[in-house]
């Protein structure tokens, strides 16, 4: 009970301390596990966000660029990629984890643990990001791209110095949205031994009828999301203000 007070106190949720919760677990054991879970979640989310985010950006730019009438239009490639993205994206992540397990086994060498969780997360995040990126590039004024072409910029240069900067505000918001989706995925990845806050909440909170533990995990996740979203909003606002 003592440790619980410390935790909630450190989260500055004073009111929680006055609510009596049926917690007979020892927080001196739970606390290091919680910190480990936070570290695991951050590891999974961070790696997925960076790797999946970059791969998704590339795939998104290809999707956008191969669209009819765009920078490197190619309707065959566009249609193939479009179909693949549409097939993968609607699969619920928990099912996707199971479905892709043989491939995970081959690539990572194991199908349980944090590394095994990150691989399917990256794949799903790549497809999710690609669509978000594509959708946010479509509104970029084609005239601006034409202007860069008329100045002799290469396609790669145009993507890096015109296309992405012009869409940067909405792209930052898209990545904040993506962060939340990945956090969501990381919770499910706990099921295959990925660990993390989701696993912590289920194993030590839900399954042991200890709402205090569940809520501790939930609140940490809420705070994480709030912080990321606030930073993204601030950055996007600054960029969008220039454009409007």
């Amino acid at each position, binding site marked *: 009970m003592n440790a619980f007070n410390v935790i909630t106190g450190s989260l500055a949720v004073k009111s929680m301390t006055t609510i009596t919760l049926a917690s007979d677990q020892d927080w001196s054991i739970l606390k290091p596990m919680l910190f480990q879970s936070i570290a695991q979640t951050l590891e999974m989310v961070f790696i997925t966000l960076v790797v999946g985010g970059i791969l998704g950006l590339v795939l998104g730019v290809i999707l956008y660029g191969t669209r009819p009438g765009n920078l490197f239009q190619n309707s065959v490639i566009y249609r193939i990629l479009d179909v693949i993205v549409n097939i993968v994206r609607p699969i619920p992540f928990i099912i996707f984890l199971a479905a892709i397990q043989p491939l995970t086994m081959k690539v990572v060498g194991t199908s349980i643990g944090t590394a095994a969780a990150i691989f399917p997360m990256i794949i799903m995040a790549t497809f999710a990001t690609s669509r978000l990126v594509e959708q946010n590039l479509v509104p970029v*004024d084609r*005239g*601006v791209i*034409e*202007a*860069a*072409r*008329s*100045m*002799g*910029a*290469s*396609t790669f*240069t145009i993507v890096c*110095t*015109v296309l992405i*900067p*012009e869409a*940067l505000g909405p792209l930052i918001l898209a990545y904040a949205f993506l962060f939340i989706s990945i956090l969501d995925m990381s919770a499910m990845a706990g099921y295959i031994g990925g660990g993390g806050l989701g696993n912590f909440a289920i194993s030590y909170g839900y399954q042991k009828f200890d709402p205090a533990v569940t809520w501790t995990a939930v609140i940490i996740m809420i705070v994480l999301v709030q912080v990321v979203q606030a930073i993204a909003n601030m950055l996007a606002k600054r*960029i969008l203000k*220039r*454009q*409007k």
Partner: protein
Amino acid sequence: MSEAIIKLDHVVKEFKSKDKKKPMRAVDDVSLSINKGDVFGIIGYSGAGKSTLVRMINALERPTSGSVRVLGQDLTGLNESGLRPLRRKIGMIFQQFNLFSTKTVAQNIAYPLVLDHWRKDYQERRVSQLLKFVGLEEHANKYPSQLSGGQKQRVGIARALATNPEILLTDEATSALDPETTGEVLDLLQQINRQLGVTIVLITHQMNVVQKIANRIAVMSDGRVVERGDAYSVFAAPKQEITRRFIATAISGIPDAERVVDMRRQWGGRIVTVLIRQKDAQNELDNSVVPSSGQNISGLIAKYGVSTNLIYGGIDTVTGYAIGAMTYELAGEPSVIDGFLGELSRDSDVLDFGTAQDPVDYDTAVSTPLGGLKAHPAGNGDTSETGGYGNADNADRADTLAGNADDAARSTSADSDGKEEQA
């Protein structure tokens, strides 16, 4: 004789249309040659193919057939990376300015310099030089959204000029601007042409824009160049109905039918319009010559002692020469007036609208000037386009009025080089 800096040869551009069997022909067999130092105006309604045409000069569009030579290089054989050095010698400005919205004014102007791998301190010097040239020094660190339309276009111009291009393509560059700002931007373009010697290709649907700065003009309709020549000649002696419609938006001269009826009612005498052309006009497509007109009116009025009232008209300047029309009411002895008109119409185009008692039909008056049409087509005998001067549809009548095709030897094909001398 000037050298051709841009040469389009039988250029065709087709786009896939919704009706898959028949492609849409945006540019249809266009041959043009633009000389160094020209301000070449290409005018036409939207959809006439002029934007597509200008985009083939820097290969933003590739021709379906035909060839495009710019600065001595054949663009049709070059791939995107091969085009890059050439594109740096061709600046382009746009109707919607197309500035990079997340870059400052200075960064926008520096962009082509970055592409060209300029050293940082050279970039900065060049940018401040350009900002000064377009008069935007104090806006260097603003974003485009903080500027007015005219200022945005100045940034566009500075950016297009950054790498010292030899050619500047302007695609409806003033169409989104108000008349005053349009005037400022045109002055700037003229300055660029005269001071920096940049050849300008000007795409527009605004005839007054062309009138103000172009020295040569091509009129486009349905993907074809239907009229072409030095600016003065096209304004002074338009052959096509579409050209006449465009000119009517820039120069007022010949009264319309309603106005003539009013004038006959308001003024008792004979209503006569004299066309003003300060010098001869030459048509590039068929080599015909339309002589000057209306240069001796005052002298003849004094000589015959006819009483005149100047009741309508307008004279404008194209490339420094006067073009327009004056409408007089003539009163006095009919025989004196006839004598006066007889001598006047020997050297000038005179449209006789008659009097209130004895009116002349408007279409007849504008298509059959006194003393006959002064055009002397010397082309291949196809003179059906040599119609009258008014805004009325007089194509039918034109057949009967066709001038004499007297010198077949001088005939030139429509796609020959622009041969008239340029200053």
